[in-house]
């Protein structure tokens, strides 16, 4: 089944048609290392990171209770947050904890749902993702 030409070493995977040699490895070997931020050092910066609600690209949009962005003045939706939420505030909101001073519970719920909907590439996503990291 093996062609001698395939017997070279090397894990290149760019040209699978050339049937590179691939070893599945020993059961006890490990092939995945996850880079975890050094939490002790980054905890402060994580909690100080900011999540604008909504993102600057959507400035002025209101936030519906499910976290979606809607035109200003839409009934049932809340105005944008007056200032970006800090990581610590976002964390509290996501846990259903107390809303920051001056934020009513309807806004807190809308903002929490907005944050849950953040995706890669959107302002605040990296901050949100870092809040999800186990520590």
């Amino acid at each position: 089944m093996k062609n001698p030409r395939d017997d070279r070493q090397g894990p290149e995977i760019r040209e699978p048609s050339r049937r590179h040699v691939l070893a599945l490895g020993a059961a006890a070997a490990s092939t995945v290392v996850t880079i975890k931020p050094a939490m002790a050092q980054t905890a402060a910066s994580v909690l100080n990171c900011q999540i604008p609600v909504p993102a600057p690209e959507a400035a002025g949009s209101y936030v519906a209770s499910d976290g979606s962005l809607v035109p200003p003045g839409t009934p049932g939706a809340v105005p944008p947050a007056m200032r970006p939420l800090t990581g610590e505030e976002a964390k509290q909101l996501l846990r259903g904890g107390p809303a920051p001073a001056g934020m009513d519970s309807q806004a807190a719920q809308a903002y929490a749902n907005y944050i849950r909907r953040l995706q890669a590439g959107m302002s605040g996503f990296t901050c949100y993702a870092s809040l999800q990291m186990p520590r």
Partner: protein
Amino acid sequence: MPGSRYAADAPHLLRKVELDGLTALFHLPSGTTHILAPPAPEILAVLGEGPADADTLLDALRSRYALVEQEGERSALLARLAELEAAGLVQRA
């Protein structure tokens, strides 16, 4: 009894950089970075095309690569899948 089926995120949710035999991989949905050694990137590539059980996956790898013959091929593959699952890169479908 059929074995578990495994799934991985589609390639557009991953950013990969080849690093001298290793692959640095940024997983967009979780915002985490992983360093992978073969055959992990190859397994992810196959699963990125659709869920598969271990036997189907083994066949797919065999069709694309010259798998080094070894004892316990299937258990080695299951060990790789378990690692990828623990890292959050593979889920049971």
